[in-house]
């Protein structure tokens, strides 16, 4: 089990160097990890759960308001690679007339929209930079892959939770099943 020992050694070496490593200066962009700790976290696929500014109830919007994911808020999935997270402007399309008396809506309107500040949504899904996945939604939609296949039953959650694990195996199996290419360049470039 020399391999294991080696990783331990590396882990420790990293730990030692962790505090010697100065985080990259703010005026420089670099793919480097901000600290050895975050490097180690990524290595072990440890991802902190996203904390959202407000508990957005997907359920309500889908079930009560009968909104379609890909039509109202995440419409760009059909056109291109990114689903995109709607800005507070999108909320206001409806909510400057609908449910304006609810505390949360008032919060959005007054604390954000009126101040010209957007909601700091955090991404729930998505890949870390170092896996170099260039995912494109549109072809998957065209192949009529259901949103729930990769994003779980968000329609019936309030705050979106990460309950499908986007491991490579997950992708590869589906591609196999659907006879889609499993060449590395299909996703990694």
């Amino acid at each position, binding site marked *: 089990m020399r391999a294991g020992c080696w990783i331990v050694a590396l882990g420790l070496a990293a730990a030692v160097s962790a505090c010697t490593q100065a985080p*990259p200066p703010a005026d*420089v962009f*670099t*793919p480097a990890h901000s600290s050895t700790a975050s490097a180690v976290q990524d290595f072990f696929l440890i991802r902190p759960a996203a904390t959202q500014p407000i508990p957005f109830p997907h359920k309500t919007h889908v079930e009560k308001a009968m909104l379609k994911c890909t039509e109202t808020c995440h419409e760009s999935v059909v056109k291109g690679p990114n689903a995109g997270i709607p800005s507070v402007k999108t909320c206001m399309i409806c909510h400057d007339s609908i449910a304006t008396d609810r505390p949360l809506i008032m919060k959005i309107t007054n604390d954000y929209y009126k101040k010209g500040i957007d909601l700091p949504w955090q991404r729930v899904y998505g890949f870390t930079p170092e896996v170099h996945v260039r995912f494109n939604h549109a*072809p998957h939609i065209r192949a009529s892959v259901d949103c729930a296949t990769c994003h779980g039953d968000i329609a019936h959650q309030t705050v979106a939770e990460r309950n499908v694990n986007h491991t490579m195996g997950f992708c590869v199996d589906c591609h196999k099943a659907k006879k889609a290419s499993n*060449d*590395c*360049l299909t996703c*990694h470039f």
Partner: protein
Amino acid sequence: MSHRWGMVVDLDTCTGCEACVVACHAENNIATAGPDEAARGRAMHWLRVERYWEGEYPEAKLKFRPVLCQQCDAAPCESVCPTYASHHTDEGLNAQVYNRCIGTRYCANACPYNVRFFNFFNPTWDKPLNLQFNPDVSVREVGVMEKCTFCVQRIKAAEITADAEKRELKDGELKPACAQSCPATAIVFGDLNDPESKVSQLYGSGRGEKLLEEVGAQPKIVYLKRQATA
């Protein structure tokens, strides 16, 4: 129809202006090494314009040759990679899979053309230069190998579009950054499986020669020889 991407470079019209070099940097998020690292031989140019002097003054001559990954069919870089980070795709591209690369640098040593580049450090960009990044291309990190991809992101995008419109790709519809930028249109890119494509036409022309063909890597780039004084 499956594709087989190839390129023809006309050395008779190439003026060595290096528009292609900058185009490549702009398209592919290639890091700028900076003077100190460049002096250590760590500047990255996926595409370089080689220049060779011939003869002595006053009969001195200069010739240029743009050299980029030759996308070999028998690529030495592929067989030596222990992790398949460098591998051959069904469209004849030499893929470099950054996330699978552990940085043995064996591929770079095996490559007869020295067109592979290594991230000796994590690259840095002085903000906000990073806002220019092409979102369709990965930003590579420390310890991975990188090289010319024939602008695979453009190939993929074009294929997806064609697929969405339920049609075949048209010849010339798709150009890598270097070919697109060349003011002398010396670089022609296209599908070698399509006998009608411009690249296929030029590929067989008598002026064509492949670089270091004797090494036997079966490169997919043909150079049209520079013509003699008329």
